[in-house]
């Protein structure tokens, strides 16, 4: 089976600065992989390349076996329907209720009947621990609750791959820990591929099977979490040990 995400010699520049510089990377299916690194090292760029929201300057990006930039528009849309994404600021539809947010992909993409939509939304809200907030609007939820709703929406269509962009950014340590736990539990329950972009070392430690570290536009280290945590590479160590 092909990798969930595969980058071959991918370079992406913004102006003269190469955010990703001839990056090779292969992320396995069925696991949670955390991509760590300081701000501005191309983590979010990598995620956007994998979804086709951004085009590379050179190289090949394959997601779920599909060459993202050789795909036609309809093929790209079909690929994206096999994926879910939790955005850094959640990207919930502010004009809709929580229920309608989670129901949105079920109604508009899967075109399920209303009874199935109701049952599935209730199941998802219960799964993320918020069964009673369906009639609220997103602006009446806390940051942690919004993350949970965004996760419910991201997995509503039972995707093969879910991408998380800084899922614990801006949350207090306790809420962050509960989101880490939720992501870990959801991955175990669903058995699908989760790719988490984060600069939060504790979160990565709590949820990841594999860990990659980006530094200066390159993948500095990649492997099982235990191996990366035992790394003697000074750059990796400095980041993990929070050495200024």
């Amino acid at each position: 089976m092909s990798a969930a995400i595969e980058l071959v010699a991918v370079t992406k520049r913004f102006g003269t600065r190469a955010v990703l510089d001839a990056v090779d990377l292969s992320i396995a299916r069925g696991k949670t992989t955390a991509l760590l690194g300081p701000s501005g090292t191309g983590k979010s760029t990598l995620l956007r390349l994998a979804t086709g929201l951004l085009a590379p300057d050179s190289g090949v990006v394959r997601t779920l076996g599909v060459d993202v930039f050789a795909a036609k528009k309809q093929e790209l849309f079909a690929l994206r329907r096999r994926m879910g994404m939790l955005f850094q600021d959640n990207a919930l539809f502010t004009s809709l209720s929580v229920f309608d947010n989670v129901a949105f992909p079920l109604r508009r993409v899967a075109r399920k009947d209303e009874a199935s939509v109701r049952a599935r939304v209730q199941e998802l809200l219960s799964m993320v621990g918020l069964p009673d907030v369906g009639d609220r609007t997103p602006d009446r939820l806390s940051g942690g609750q919004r993350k949970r709703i965004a996760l419910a929406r991201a997995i509503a269509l039972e995707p093969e791959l879910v991408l998380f962009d800084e899922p614990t950014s801006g949350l207090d340590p306790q809420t962050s820990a509960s989101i880490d736990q939720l992501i870990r539990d959801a991955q175990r329950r669903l058995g699908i591929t989760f790719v988490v972009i984060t600069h939060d070392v504790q979160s990565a430690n709590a949820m990841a099977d594999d860990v990659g570290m980006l530094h200066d536009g390159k993948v500095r280290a990649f492997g099982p979490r235990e191996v990366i945590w035992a790394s003697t590479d000074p750059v990796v160590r400095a980041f993990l040990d929070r050495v200024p």
Partner: protein
Amino acid sequence: MTSSSFVERALWPLRWPLGVSAFAVRALRASLRGPPAKDTLLLTVRLLVRSLPVVVVVTFFSGAMLTVQAAVSLAGFGAQSVTGLIVGFGGVREVFPLLAGGSLAARTGAELASQLQAMRVTRQVEALDMMGLDAMQLLVAPRVIACILGGPVCVVAALVAGLFGAYAIGVWQLGIDRGAMWNSLLQAVSHLDVYIGLIKGVVLGGLVGVVACAEGFMSTELTAQSVGQAANRAVIRSMVVVCIAALLLSLLIYGHLVST
């Protein structure tokens, strides 16, 4: 200066019109794919609820002002009784539809641009992309169609309010005979003028919709500040486009009458 930067500078004034034209083609294609009917209906109702009061107030007072000026000008010739004729021609054919388009640009144009830009800033548009949905079809097409549907309604409301404003000031303030005022106003308005007004409403409404949505969708800057900037640009640019389009429509429709 390199040749490419020279070409870029030379084409700079055309960048915006070309960009909006390309956006209009995309919006048209998205509209033909069938936007969500319920959203389109709700947006049309919202547009009318929000824009009609502005249109009515603006055109009522404009009709009244036109009447004052016409009455003053005609008083010297003792022809105050045909005041309505002047207001009817100028107002119904040109001023009221133009003001309806301008009011739509100010009220709805700003709202559409800020809505779409805010959705882009908060990544809601990207979320649609990530669901494999076409944001042009779901967000832009219903808004443009709402403007196309709402434009003619606004023009009709503008004609009625403008004529009523003219009648009110003429009869109650300037003392023009009721029958003379009413007859001269109606004499100036033919069915054809109303149909032309409806066509103008469709064109001007469509242009406001396209320009406003383009301003909310084309900006590369995604900051909180950019939401206000998009709304501001949408109002200014759609008003300019409405004025140019109104003139071109007038030349196209009435221009030949000058030469004959």
